[in-house]
């Protein structure tokens, strides 16, 4: 909402200066976006001083001037004026300026081989006089201290631009703003002058508002103005329209616009001679069409509120008029419309047709239904004054009567909500200035809400009115109450933080990527999940919700590889979407690692990243986050985007359907499809939602401290076993021989090839044996050794290597 201070003063008697008005507006909730003069093409011309004028190296008649334009460095300008000399004050036009005389736009150019940054101007070039012999010579006295400042004073009045919140349609007119300011003590709202307009004759174009279910219009007021001479608006009106940032069109159109911005009362003027017999306000039928004033043809749906005549649609009520009945300079007779349209109907129609106009913006927020006549009268007066003509009686048709909103307000609610007290007297004064009608019934105030405030419906709205006018600075600061109702984080939130920092501590950079992704990349990772398209994506390559954490991670990994990074470890913790309903999402950590380990190390052998690098990250992070080591089972069933032979899943229980984590090499097909250039690429993911909350709290598990002081023994075994036999099973077989005595089993060598039969491998394990009751003797140990060998041989088909 734009307006000038002068315009505001048409409605407000105030002693406030501009800055006080600006501050007050912001303090009462009418946020000032800007307060500046509208920009002018002449703003670029600035006062400058020639520091040094020397002869152009390639042209005797040209000069090369170092010019001070008020910035750090001087500018070099080529000038042909004979009067250019050291110390001369003149006018400088930088590149981009438009020279008034010929409307040419300046650019940086070379003149006889030397670059000139802009131009020094003559009076004739600036249309100040016909003097074109030399550049302007400014008087030292007046301009010596103005170097760098604008030469032309911007005379246009400063414009206030307010950002009006959607609950305040009344402040979409200058009068409403003035009213708010007056309530806040910034002046006195001027009383509207009584109109002494003389009416002649009746409005004889019949108006009907059809009673239909979807009818979007409840009041239609109008009058005829006959015998007008439409013309250019007078200067004062043009200036007003220009200050709004709009272009003047003709007196009649400018007047209706002026009233809209002055009183927040949209109007529409028809050329009465172009109306076919009568006005019918009705709902549209699908397929009807009309050409609107924005020169577009609109094809309507059912139930849009249209103003029509016998020939068809004239315009969309409250949104936009049509060209068929538009006013022109030749228009002689006008039908002026002032109506009330329902916000819901306006909003629906404008959304369907994608039209946004100043009238629509106002009607959809709610126009004062009691301003029909005032609008007609004010506009008619101005039309008569500027264009002449005779005004008919006003004709107001309605299908609904306005009902007053009455609120019973207990002033205690104010203190209860804001924490401070305002005397009843002051409170009533504020409300009355805002237009409320206040009467007292014991402690309760009976308030009649002004018709221009559709946003006020209940007592809390009254609290807001009083506190915003009184000023939020009156609210006292209460020290925070520290009472805690429950722990800050629950188990899964703690897990989130533990795992996030645990993975990062292993050399991974955390990133945050969009929750949406490119369906083409998503396709590679979505497995059996349904694709979740976004109806209105920001771009076609961010068109689906990600079904997996990986599509974006892989995409950005590739970008970083393309930037020249070779060894990259990235991870993200965030949502992965399984369906399109709220809650169909999992919280997942995804990690990617590319390149080599120990690249260019002088002492370690460099190698390509492998599955066991990421397995370590997964397992260690899970341990660190408190997942019981003995609970974890590794399996080789993994999603299809993993290398089928070099990936694994981590389960907390054999029966568990969902893995809590996966790790391994990415499938080579994906590397190929996405054209990822790297030596190696391994990935992992941990799904937080599938991790079971441990029942044991740390304080419980710590108290179970047990250890054995008896001597422990270590024995090594090597077995020849089928190549596909999993080491985890071998370890389990050995452990199950005696869970109490066998404390740990470590695989320390795996070997295939020489001396090992085809299809077999050798696995060497180190077993630690320790009793909690005694020191084991040779006999005991031999016994266990034998049991281990026989158990492994019978359960796995392995043979001990001798």
């Amino acid at each position, binding site marked *: 909402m734009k307006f000038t201070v002068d315009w505001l003063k048409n409605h407000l008697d105030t002693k406030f200066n501009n800055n006080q008005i600006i501050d007050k507006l912001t*303090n009462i*909730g009418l946020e000032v976006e800007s307060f500046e003069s509208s920009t002018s093409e002449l703003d670029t011309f600035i006062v400058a001083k020639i520091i040094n004028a020397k002869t152009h190296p390639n042209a005797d008649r040209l000069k090369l001037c170092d010019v001070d334009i008020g910035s750090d460095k001087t500018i070099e300008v080529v000038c042909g004026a004979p009067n250019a000399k050291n110390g001369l004050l003149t006018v400088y036009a930088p590149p981009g300026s438009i020279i008034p005389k010929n409307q040419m736009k300046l650019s940086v150019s070379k003149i006889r081989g030397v670059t000139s940054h802009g131009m020094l101007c003559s009076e004739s070039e600036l249309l100040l006089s016909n003097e074109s012999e030399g550049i302007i010579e400014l008087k030292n006295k007046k301009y010596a201290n103005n170097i760098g400042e604008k030469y032309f004073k911007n005379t246009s009045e400063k414009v206030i631009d307010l950002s009006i919140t*959607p*609950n*305040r349609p009344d402040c979409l007119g200058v009068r409403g703003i003035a009213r708010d300011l007056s309530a806040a003590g910034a002046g006195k709202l001027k009383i509207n002058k009584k109109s002494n307009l003389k009416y002649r004759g009746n409005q004889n174009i019949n108006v009907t508002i059809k009673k239909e279910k979807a009818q979007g219009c409840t009041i239609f007021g109008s009058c005829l103005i006959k015998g007008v001479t439409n013309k250019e608006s007078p200067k004062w009106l043009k200036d007003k329209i220009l200050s709004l940032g709009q272009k003047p069109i003709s007196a009649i159109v400018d007047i209706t616009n002026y009233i809209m911005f002055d009183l927040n009362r949209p109007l529409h003027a028809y050329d009465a001679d172009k109306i076919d017999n009568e006005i019918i306000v009705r709902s549209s039928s699908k397929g009807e069409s009309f050409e609107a004033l924005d020169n577009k043809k609109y094809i309507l749906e059912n139930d849009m509120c249209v103003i029509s005549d016998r020939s068809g649609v004239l315009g969309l009520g409250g949104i936009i008029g049509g060209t068929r009945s538009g006013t022109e300079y030749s228009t002689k007779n006008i039908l002026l419309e002032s109506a009330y349209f329902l916000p819901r109907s306006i*909003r629906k129609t404008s959304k369907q047709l994608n039209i946004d106009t100043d009238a629509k913006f106002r009607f959809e927020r709610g126009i004062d239904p009691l301003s029909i006549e005032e609008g007609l009268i004010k506009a008619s007066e101005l039309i008569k004054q500027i264009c002449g003509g005779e005004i008919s009686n006003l004709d107001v048709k309605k299908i609904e009567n306005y009902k007053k909103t009455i609120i019973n307000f207990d002033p205690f609610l104010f203190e*209860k*909500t*804001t*924490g401070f007290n305002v005397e009843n007297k002051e409170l009533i004064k504020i409300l009355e200035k805002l237009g409320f009608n206040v009467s007292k019934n014991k402690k309760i105030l009976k308030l009649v809400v002004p018709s221009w405030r559709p946003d006020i419906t*209940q007592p*809390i709205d009254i609290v*807001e009115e009083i506190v915003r006018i009184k000023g*939020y*600075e009156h609210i*006292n*600061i*209460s020290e*925070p109450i*520290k009472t805690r*109702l429950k722990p*800050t984080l629950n188990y899964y*939130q703690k897990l989130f*933080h533990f795992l*996030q*920092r645990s993975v*990062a501590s292993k*050399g991974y*950079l*955390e990133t*945050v990527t*969009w*929750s*949406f992704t490119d369906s083409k990349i998503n396709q590679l990772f979505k497995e059996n999940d349904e694709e979740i398209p*976004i*109806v*209105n*994506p*920001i771009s076609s390559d*961010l068109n689906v*919700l990600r079904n997996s954490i990986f599509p*974006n991670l892989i995409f950005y990994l590739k*970008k970083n590889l393309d*930037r020249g990074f070779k060894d*990259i470890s*990235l991870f993200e*913790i*965030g949502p992965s*979407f399984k369906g*399109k*309903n*709220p*809650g*169909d*999402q999992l919280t997942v950590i995804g990690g990617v690692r590319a390149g080599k*380990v*120990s*690249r260019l190390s002088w*002492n*370690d052998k460099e190698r390509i990243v492998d599955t066991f690098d990421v397995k370590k990250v997964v397992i260690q992070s899970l341990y660190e986050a408190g997942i019981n080591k003995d609970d974890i089972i590794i399996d080789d069933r993994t999603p299809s985007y993993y290398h089928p032979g070099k990936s694994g899943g981590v389960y907390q229980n054999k029966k568990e359907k969902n893995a809590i984590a996966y790790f391994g090499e990415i499938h080579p097909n994906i590397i190929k499809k996405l054209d990822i250039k790297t030596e190696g690429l391994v990935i992992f993911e941990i799904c937080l939602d599938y991790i079971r909350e441990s029942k044991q709290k740390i304080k419980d598990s710590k108290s179970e401290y047990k250890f054995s002081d008896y001597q422990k023994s270590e024995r090594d075994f090597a077995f020849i076993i089928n190549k596909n036999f999993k080491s985890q099973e071998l370890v389990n077989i050995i452990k199950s021989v005696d869970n109490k005595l066998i404390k740990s089993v470590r695989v320390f060598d795996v070997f295939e090839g020489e001396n090992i039969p085809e299809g077999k491998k050798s696995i060497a394990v180190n077993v630690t044996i320790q009793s909690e009751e005694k020191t084991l003797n040779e006999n005991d140990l031999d016994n266990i050794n034998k049991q281990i060998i026989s158990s492994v041989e019978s359960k796995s088909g392995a043979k001990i290597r001798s």
Partner: protein
Amino acid sequence: MSDIKKIKDDYIDKLSTENNIEKVNYIKSELFGKNGIISNEFKKLGSISVEERKKLASDLNNIKDELQNKISIKIQEIETKEINLKLEKEKIDVTLPERNIEIGKIHPVSQVIDEISSIFSEIGFSVEEGPDVENEYNNFTALNTPDNHPARDMHDTFYLDNNKELLLRTHTSPVQVRTMLKGKPPFKIIAPGRTYRSDSDQTHAPMFHQVEGLHIDKNINMGHLKGCLNYFIKEFFEVDKIKMRFRPSHFPFTEPSAEVDIGYEINNGKIVIGEGNKWLEILGCGMVHPNVLKNVNVNPSKYQGYAFGIGIDRLGMLKYGINDLRAFFETDYRWLSHFGFDPLDVPSNYRGLSR
């Protein structure tokens, strides 16, 4: 006796110039071996008179001690020399690089979320979450923003179906609705998370982060709201004084509503929070609208309280001098390394919010 003394003096001389450990050991056995010179002298003691024996034995013992002492000192001397020589040879260049260090980082958004959570935890708030996909009811209608409300235009919403029933939440406020629907008052929560608007330019990203705050109890008023935010902003920016301004505004789900500005100035091209005469809008807040409370089955005549919504990314940008919002989400390795935080930097009250 004089013979023995001579022998002793000879050997002492020998030992003092000897530098070979094997030769020293040879001397040792020459003197004290089975048929060693000294050993043999002791054997002779048996064949002399008691008188003489006493004297001789004493002398002999002295000579033995002296020689043995000299030998052991010599051995130690040579060994030390040898060890030193060996260590000298083993010397390495310690300025060679260590084994490759792999440094991980926490994203600034995560760090700021943890900072915020830590601050609010101190005054008794707990953390709630809600889904990224929301239904139209929780995101708008329950928050007193019915379908025909123009406030909806301020939220450029991503939809997942043509009926506009399912959407990506445009703010974290639906977590208020979920929290209150599933529990009973009082409520005292914050809810950080991802939010989405179909808006993309230099200062807007289609995805960003907000933290919602909600405190509902019997007598929570705007003074508490002011106190809570005043505390938060001071703690967050780690400054003693903060210039803060509450300005009336409008959100459908709060009434009265306010926007909060903080004072700042530009000093040497850097933004300084808490001083100066410029204002920067950083959050929106207000008293929860009675209509919202009714929608979530909380009796507005018994309970009342405040809610606020803060842009997390923006706070992080202000605190850590990050200029470009878009860069948060572009996964540039250089940017993540530079702006990321060490994983051990867990914001906490006792150790300080940031280093």
